[in-house]
């Protein structure tokens, strides 16, 4: 099916044909024809953000919570450069988004025209792929290919740069066809390797599943298969920050998150296991601690759709390249056909060991006095919201780690956080994107006051579209994680890690027409949280918390999984000179 239309109309038609219902964007000179085409239709809703970075994070939140690709539309020059942080964030967390940028007309490219930037050059290293489209006839093909590339294989951000004359000119529009692109990543794992993994599982005495964002990205069916596999083998399971929710936090075999601020039992199990089954995780440095002492006595299997993830950081014994869903399906088949065997006696002993580690209760804290502990605030938030249809986003820092530790995720796509890039300012716009995808659900952004201020302008967006996102700010008047590292590593010299002149968040909310709630007394907390939940509209919740609380457990830089710090008493001289150069 082909039709004649302008380039701008093609953009809108392609988005409709690809099933897009929401676009996050900000207009400008070089995208005016596309905005004009958007104005003249009713299929796609455009959400006007207040800064292009917000548009990209909102699209990320939308994508992660719905499983569909997120779409952004921004102008040339500064519009495009403002999108770079979001693109890099989506690249590191493997989030499928399509960013459309306007560009100066083709005949002006290279002349340093007004609002001209080399957008494809700037974004080449922070996209999975990008295109500069110089002919209107080529535009529809590139638009459809962009969706294919963003969502196939390891998902990621793509960018299409569209010069203004290409938007104005007429050309031939082609409807989406089944992709004939040469880019068709392998999704089926090698069955010999799958069988080898099953053999290892049958013999393992101390097995452990270590799962990551790849399970979420593989879709809900993959999470379902994972749950089935865990319950039928009775192996323990831990997950990265990115993978929370693939296996339910209330599940019997759940050890909690692993890594730098992961749970004691999860990290000890990683260190002590004899078979590590990595499913869709990538041995990130927040996970491994010091490489030379990482899980020294285990056979390591690694299931990943991206061949470059395998052996990049940690040498593995059983590599399986493929989509997690496909590989788990084959794995279940092979394991069942061989008689569903495990070394259950040994696994039982392994569980006894794990139960001893769990008895340490590494997340234990005591709320006393009149100052709210951040852990207490999140425990109460969890208690009062866990039965809601709930989505959580976060900013980056201590509050993010506490949220991962104290909130429970029962399903995939419910937890949106900037894992790889660690982007402060991610959570608020992401919560807007999530709420757009789930208008009836409860969407909470767990934030620190410093992170939240980085994209606070989006309160205008939340108000304009009546998005009742709840901003739960743990306000310690500090850059908490920076402060913690300065305490542990830099002789308690708190260089630029506190905020003076913080705004009155209640008044700030009111200035935008939103509701502000201040809470500083632990006795008032439950009531204040209920007030937040009962308000139909955006809420800024300013929760004043203990200013010098540190986040534990913690694997210090340069240390191994079994050298965790469990509390303040452990911190003296915990990080040596070699560890202090690491981030």
């Amino acid at each position: 099916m082909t039709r004649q239309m302008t380039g701008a109309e093609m953009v809108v038609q392609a988005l409709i044909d690809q099933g897009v219902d929401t676009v996050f964007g900000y207009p400008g000179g070089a995208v005016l024809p596309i905005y004009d085409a958007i104005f003249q239709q009713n299929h796609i809703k455009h959400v006007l953000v207040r800064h292009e970075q917000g548009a990209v994070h909102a699209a990320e939140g939308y994508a992660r919570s719905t499983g569909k690709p997120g779409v952004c539309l921004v102008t040339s020059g500064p519009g495009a450069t403002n999108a770079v942080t979001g693109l890099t964030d989506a690249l590191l967390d493997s989030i499928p988004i399509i960013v459309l940028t306007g560009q100066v007309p083709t005949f002006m490219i290279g002349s340093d025209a007004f609002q001209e930037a080399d957008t494809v050059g700037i974004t080449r290293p922070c996209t999975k792929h990008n295109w500069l489209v110089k002919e209107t006839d080529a535009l529809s093909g590139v638009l459809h290919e962009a969706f294919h590339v963003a969502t196939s294989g390891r998902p990621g951000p793509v960018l299409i740069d569209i010069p203004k004359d290409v938007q104005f000119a007429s050309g031939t529009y082609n409807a989406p066809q089944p992709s004939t692109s040469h880019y068709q990543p392998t999704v089926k794992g090698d069955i010999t390797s799958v069988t080898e993994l099953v053999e290892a599982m049958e013999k393992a005495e101390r097995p452990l599943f270590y799962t990551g964002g790849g399970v979420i990205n593989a879709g809900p069916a993959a999470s379902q298969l994972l749950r089935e596999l865990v319950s039928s083998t009775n192996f323990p399971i831990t997950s990265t920050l990115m993978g929370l929710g693939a296996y339910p936090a209330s599940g019997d075999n759940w050890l909690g998150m692993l890594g730098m601020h992961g749970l004691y039992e999860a990290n000890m199990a990683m260190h002590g296991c004899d078979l590590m089954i990595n499913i869709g995780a990538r041995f990130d440095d927040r996970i491994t601690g010091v490489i030379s002492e990482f899980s020294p006595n285990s056979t390591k299997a690694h299931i990943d759709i991206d061949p470059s993830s395998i052996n990049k950081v940690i040498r593995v014994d059983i590599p399986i390249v493929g989509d997690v869903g496909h590989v788990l399906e084959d794995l279940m088949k092979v394991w069942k056909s061989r008689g569903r065997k495990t070394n259950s006696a040994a696994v039982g002993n392994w569980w006894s060991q794990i139960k001893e580690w769990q008895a340490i209760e590494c997340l234990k804290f005591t709320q006393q006095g009149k100052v709210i502990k951040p852990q207490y605030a999140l425990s109460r938030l969890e208690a009062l919201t866990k039965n809601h249809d709930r989505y959580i986003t976060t900013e980056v820092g201590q509050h993010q780690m506490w949220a991962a530790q104290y909130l429970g995720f029962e399903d995939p796509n419910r937890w949106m956080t900037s894992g790889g890039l660690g982007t402060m300012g991610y959570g608020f716009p992401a919560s807007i994107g999530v709420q757009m995808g789930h208008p009836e659900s409860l969407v909470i952004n767990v934030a620190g006051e410093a992170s939240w201020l980085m994209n606070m302008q989006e309160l205008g967006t939340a108000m304009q579209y009546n998005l009742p996102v709840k901003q739960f700010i743990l306000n310690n008047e500090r850059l908490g994680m920076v402060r913690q590292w300065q305490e542990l590593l830099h002789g308690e010299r708190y260089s630029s890690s506190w905020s003076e002149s913080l705004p009155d968040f209640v008044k700030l909310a009111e200035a935008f027409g939103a509701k502000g709630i201040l809470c500083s007394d632990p006795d008032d907390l439950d009531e204040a949280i209920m007030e937040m939940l009962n308000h139909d509209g955006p809420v800024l919740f300013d929760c004043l918390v203990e200013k010098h609380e540190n986040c534990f457990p913690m694997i210090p830089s340069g240390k191994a999984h079994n050298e965790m710090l469990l509390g303040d008493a452990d911190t003296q001289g915990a990080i040596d000179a070699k560890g202090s150069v690491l981030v």
Partner: protein
Amino acid sequence: MSDLNLKKGTSAKSAYNLRPNFSDIVERHTLAVMVENEPGVLARVIGLFAGRGYNIESLTVAEVDHEGKLSRITIVTTGTPQVIEQIKAQLGRIVTVHEVHDLTVEGPSVERELAIFKVAGDGEKRVEALRLADIFRANVVDSTLKSFVFEITGAPEKIDAFADLMRPLGLVEVARTGVAALSRGG
């Protein structure tokens, strides 16, 4: 231990054998990368090497299939086996890369490079330069009373050897194309 079944760059001795024998010894590998001949593709490849800190000893690129719009990039790189495997996997990730072949491990291959040498001098040195050029089957492509320009084709080692010999005889300037390589046999 089986090789993995992968689409991109798959060959019998796969460039994607993901169970390599890791060692700390730095090896020199010649990679042939088939890419879509579209704007920016070379920047993607070079950007990958720069961004991830890999070495490029030489790199040549030209279109080899006009109808299929394919170019062949020949890269000579160095690294430990783990780094070489990463380089190949990272190249394979680029959307416009069609195939990655590691000619160093995929069997015997031929490597050729073209170089042009300007040698200036007179008297006995000039005669000696011409005599050595003849031995190396280098052609004289320009000549004045005080200089020669030699064109020489061969493996990089042969060109290195010729350069060593020309240096004391008045070598002024060298231009080299970098390596083009193909696997041997059918």
